[in-house]
């Protein structure tokens, strides 16, 4: 590139123009309908997953196996026309296995980078707590920075890039629980939960979700997702709403029930998801409801309850969620 | 502390004429009893009152903050920002002149309009003529609105200080003795550097970047490379200001500043030794800032101070007056 070209003023933004609230709503309802076909009776979870996508964040699905974590990830990937990779985390997985490695190419007499499974738009990191902290931190670093460093060179990951990590709270043996600082990097923690009885019955009789998954067609492009993300960042937030977010975060730090309150990143995340969800609902502005209803999935995994160790199981999670829910009820809503 | 209600009032040229004419018309009116002259007098007096009210309205609720540049150098223009904010909810402020009052620096900026609940910044250029401490005392907000008859001003305390670095002059070329020790100096030990110190077997778990691939390919096993610790060139600029006065001191300070800047630009670790003060070796912008600040504030005299104590490890650059 000549210096003249470098100085050329025209810079094409990779993001494209942000979607309007109506466009966003249209795309999102198509997505919800599409995913809903594969993952029945879980509209709320689907919406939150999409919100996480729109906010450009990563998702931690914490639940027992067999409730549809993988289905959710796959349905999302198929509906979105995005590249999808699944990494099954095991204890012997090395960082290079997910990032990719430089391989010496005899023919060309040079090193060639072989990208790992991380180089996909949508990555399902299954059972993330089964691998070693070293590989975990490699993944989390990639999540935070949007790039991986291999052989001293930074290699950017594709955009959009979203990790759906799952972990099973019921197994303790042979697992490496994620510390709070790492959990902080996940925008949301969701638990899919068992399907409603009638849906389960339907599943039993209807032959499972695999068939549905096979027939899903993409309804949104990568470009749409990028535009959705751009639009989410533009959603209006009144100063009082920001104060409300700060008040909630401050409440988690002040209560004696919590030994470690939510970090500033938690506040940022809460507002980002609130923006995204407002957009998903076709609004160009954030309401207090957006913030309040998202507190549990955004904040519960970011706090450490007093008197308990980190990364506990199901009970731990429920306790944290209850604490957050109670706290939020006591923070005055702006009017 | 200057109270918020304090105002200074002065006449403009038009104001003097206007007031003179008003008094004249007042005398004529009372002398003759001509009511139409009283009417004209009433208009003139009422305009003065309206002018007083409006100018007060213009000044009220206006707050000004000064924004000093992080670095100012003698002889080079510095931009000093005056950030004005109109704290009133509805009423705008008109034709505000914001200026320095008291202190060592004179400057002013002008705002035609400052809308309600908004802020605007004006900046003035200030070319410091000397190094050292420049004090700011008050900021005065003045307005002649709406008629330009009177200038009402409101002084606000805004004390600040700006350290002006010595004038930038070209550094004198170095003499032989110091040149001899120029350059990066390798130390004979393993550390972080560029030069190869030695090769050894790669130990598992070590950073892959330490693998010397060529040797590994040759040897058929992983060979790691250790690199040599490097140390930067270390220079001590020495200035004994005690015998220097006036211009000679200024020249010496400027020269010392030039040396410090050049050595830092060259990547050296520079320390600064003055009579009564010593700045330990360091590099980078922070060091430049510290050294120039020390030089900027260097005063004459100081006979009671001890001689400069140069850094034992560095090469010494002695500045003479």
């Amino acid at each position, binding site marked *: 590139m000549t210096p003249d070209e470098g100085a050329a003023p025209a810079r094409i933004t990779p993001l494209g123009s942000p979607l309007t609230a109506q466009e966003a709503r249209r795309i999102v309802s198509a997505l919800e309908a599409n995913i809903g076909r594969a993952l029945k009776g879980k509209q709320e979870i689907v919406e939150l997953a999409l919100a996480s996508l729109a906010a450009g964040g990563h998702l931690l699905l914490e639940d027992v196996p067999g409730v549809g974590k993988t289905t959710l990830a796959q349905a999302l990937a198929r509906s979105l026309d995005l590249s999808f990779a699944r990494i099954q985390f095991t204890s012997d997985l090395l960082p290079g296995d997910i990032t990719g490695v430089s391989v010496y190419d005899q023919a060309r007499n040079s090193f060639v980078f072989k990208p790992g499974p991380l180089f996909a738009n949508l990555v399902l990191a299954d059972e993330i707590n089964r691998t070693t902290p070293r590989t975990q931190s490699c993944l989390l670093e990639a999540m935070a920075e949007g790039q991986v460093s291999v052989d001293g060179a930074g290699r950017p990951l594709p955009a959009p890039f979203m990790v759906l990590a799952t972990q099973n709270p019921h197994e303790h043996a042979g697992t490496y629980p994620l510390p709070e600082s790492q959990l902080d990097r996940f925008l949301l923690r969701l638990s899919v939960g068992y399907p409603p009885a009638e849906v389960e019955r339907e599943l039993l009789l209807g032959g499972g979700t695999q068939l549905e998954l096979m027939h899903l067609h993409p309804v949104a492009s990568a470009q749409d997702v990028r535009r959705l993300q751009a639009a989410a960042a533009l959603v*209006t937030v*009144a*100063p*009082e*709403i920001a*104060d409300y977010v700060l008040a909630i975060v401050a409440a988690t730090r002040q209560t004696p029930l919590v030994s470690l309150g939510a970090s500033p990143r938690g506040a940022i995340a809460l507002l980002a998801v609130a923006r995204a969800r407002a957009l998903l609902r076709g*609004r160009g*502005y954030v*309401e*207090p*409801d957006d913030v*309040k*209803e998202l507190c549990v999935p955004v904040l519960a995994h970011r706090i450490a309850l007093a008197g308990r160790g980190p990364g506990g199981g199901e009970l731990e999670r429920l306790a944290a969620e209850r604490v957050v829910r109670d706290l*939020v*009820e*006591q*923070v*005055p*809503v702006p*009017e | 502390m200057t109270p918020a209600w304090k105002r200074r009032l002065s006449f403009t*040229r*038009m104001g003097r*004429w*206007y007031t003179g*004419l008003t008094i004249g*018309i007042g005398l*004529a*009116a*009372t002398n*003759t*009893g*001509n*009511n*139409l002259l*009283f*009417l*004209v*007098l*009433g*208009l*003139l*007096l*009422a305009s003065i*009152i*309206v002018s007083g009210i*409006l100018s007060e309205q213009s000044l009220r609720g206006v707050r000004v903050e000064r924004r000093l540049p992080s670095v100012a150098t003698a002889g080079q223009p510095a931009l000093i920002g005056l950030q004005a904010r109109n704290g009133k*909810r509805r009423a705008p402020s*008109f*034709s505000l*002149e914001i200026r320095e009052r008291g202190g060592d620096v004179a400057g002013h*900026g*002008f*705002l*035609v309009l400052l809308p309600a*609940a908004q802020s605007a910044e004006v900046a003035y250029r200030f070319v410091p003529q000397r190094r050292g401490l420049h004090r700011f005392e008050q900021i005065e907000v003045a307005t*002649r*609105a*709406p*008629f*330009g008859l009177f200038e009402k001003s409101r002084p606000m305390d805004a004390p600040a200080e700006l350290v002006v670095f010595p004038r930038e002059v070209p550094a004198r070329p170095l003499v032989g003795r110091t040149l001899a020790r120029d350059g990066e100096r390798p130390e004979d030990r393993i550390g972080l550097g560029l030069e190869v110190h030695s090769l050894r077997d790669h130990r598992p778990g070590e950073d892959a970047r330490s693998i010397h691939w060529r040797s590994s390919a040759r040897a058929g096993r992983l060979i790691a490379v250790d690199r040599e610790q490097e140390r930067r060139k270390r220079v001590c600029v020495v200035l004994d200001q005690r015998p220097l006065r006036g211009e000679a001191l200024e020249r010496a300070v400027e020269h010392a500043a030039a040396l410090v800047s050049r050595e830092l630009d060259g990547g050296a670790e520079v320390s600064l030794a003055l009579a009564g003060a010593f700045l330990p070796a360091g590099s980078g912008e922070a060091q430049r800032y510290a050294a120039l600040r020390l030089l900027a504030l260097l005063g004459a005299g100081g006979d009671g101070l001890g001689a400069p104590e140069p850094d034992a490890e560095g090469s010494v650059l002695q500045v003479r007056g």
Partner: protein
Amino acid sequence: MKTPRGLTLLQTQRWAGTLTAAFGFLACAVSGEMGPAMTALFPLAVAGSAVAGRRFHGRMQWGWTVLLVGALLVLGVQVFAGQIDIILAAALFAELLCIHRLWHRRTERDELLLLLLALLLLCAGAALSAEVTFGFAFLAFAVSGTWALALTHLRFAIEEGRGPAGSAALLNSRRVATPALLGGLAALAFFGIAGAALIFLTFPRVTIGGLRRASRPAPIAGLGDRVDLSRHGTVADDPRVILRVRLDPAPRGEPRDLAMHWRARTLSQWTGHGWQSPDGGLIPVLRLPQRPPRGRGVPSVLSADIEVVGQFTDGVVFTPEGWPLGVDFRQPGTPRPAARRLYRNAAGDLFYQPVDSGDVRYSVVADTDEPDPARVRGRGQRYPSWVEADLAVPASLDARVRALAERLGAGKDPADAAAAVERWLATALRYTRDLPGDVADPIADFLFVRRAGHCELFSSAMVLMLRSLGIPARNVTGYFGGRRTDAGYYAVRAGDAHSWVEVYFPDAGYVRFDPTPASERGGRQEGFQARMVLLWDSLQQRWRAFVVDYDLVSQAQAMRRIGQLLHETGRRLAGKDGGTGRLRRVIAAAGGVLVTASVIAWLRRLRGRARKGQERELTADQRRAAALWRVGRRLLRSAGIEIAVGTTAGELARRVPAAAGLVRAYAAARWGGRRLPPRVVRATLRELRSGLRASAGRDI
């Protein structure tokens, strides 16, 4: 981009300066004293400077200097020679200086000098004229002067603050001097004018009556000392006001049109085709003649305060109906002695001296008890010698006139004869405003040919007929009528000119007869123009009364009135006098509300300060939304719905479906900056109320 229309800041500023100078000049010019040449010079100079002024900036300074010095010398000589007075000379010189500045406007100093010169012109105008037109020029000057001062300040502040290069864009912008800015400045000017009025009212006066130059009203022709009956054309309606009269006591019922003869002068010598006033000079009057002894009747006195607007070159004094008892030239309320003296002529008409100094106001006191024909009956026909002139019958009098007179009045008592002639004329002949034209005998023509004519013909015919019967009579001119104005006085217009008859009776003097049909007396000024003239006159009168003649006495009166008003109010508040308990209660309640409101406002302010972090600018829609939500919550709470601090609007909407619309509107406006028209506020509140009522009904 669309270029906004309108003037640039620079253009507006220059035009404001020019306008100010023009209004200053106008204030001078309305006095009419500057002469046509100097009056025409200014508009020409303004036009010239607008067209070619730029080319002359700073050029030919020496030429201007010579011109101005020359003008100064000429004016000095004129003043010295007594041709013009010094104020006029100063005004003229100021005008020239002003023109000079208009042609040389570059620097701030030029602009400011121009404004100061305009101010000087205004002052000169104040000294030169007292007309209400000055008032209008003054108002216009106040507005344009405010524009000019503020814009000049703005322009040069910008130039100073930004430098010539930086300010050019702003000065040439058409977005600065917008109608909004000019309107705001005009509002400012009105504050200035209000302040001027206040200062005018309260500035202590030290003199009684102001020294001012008398106005020079346009002379009104008309009541001359001769009348020619054989003229062409029609009697014109002239709506110009010539007398302003106030009657004391006021006429009963304050009618719109006064039925009053305003007597001016006697025309008793017949010229063959008209009348002229009797010969003889004027003699000073110290006391008016005693009225002859009356019969029965309660003496009733009428005082007419007459302000002469039109200028009468002969200085005639108008008297109302009745016997004039006295004329007082002192202005009401002033103790200054009258500067005029009263004269009378041979016929007893009253005149004042000196005549030429305009601005005449006097009051005439008259005994209104007029003898009617019945009361003067039987006084015989022994006439004193000095009425002989009123018995002179022209030799050329048409025999038919004499015959008609004989038929109507022969053998009757003079009073009955006069009444008979008056009645016959008023009923048998027609009134017309058309003049007879050039006829040999206008009286015969009137009585027997045209059988129609105007008031002068009626009165002339009656006089001649009575004289032919040997009854002394004379023709009298004056005005009839008076139209009430909204300023409280009656205006007598030039078109109200009238002519009637006075008949002499021994021991009773002259008694008024008016043969013109009552409905046709005076003028008929009704049209738009006449109304405008009246309006203007009342404006002028008020300007005179309240502005020009405001002095120590009026000030003292005004202050006393204000003091009384305050005192009255205080007493009413204290409830001592007339202030009923109800009034007191109302005032106490109002005071209580006021105090409560201010305490609430203060507390809110304090609270606002306390939550400084939340003290943010909300739009009107956002404020309305917050208020709507507060009302909605109150409604919900009163319906028994629990709302915790942490409860959001959305949660409530899910719990109470009736509130959904309200919550949606509130949230969109409050958080999304959407519009929230009051209509929506009302609709959502209505929806919530009815929803709550319905659910309450279900609960029962």
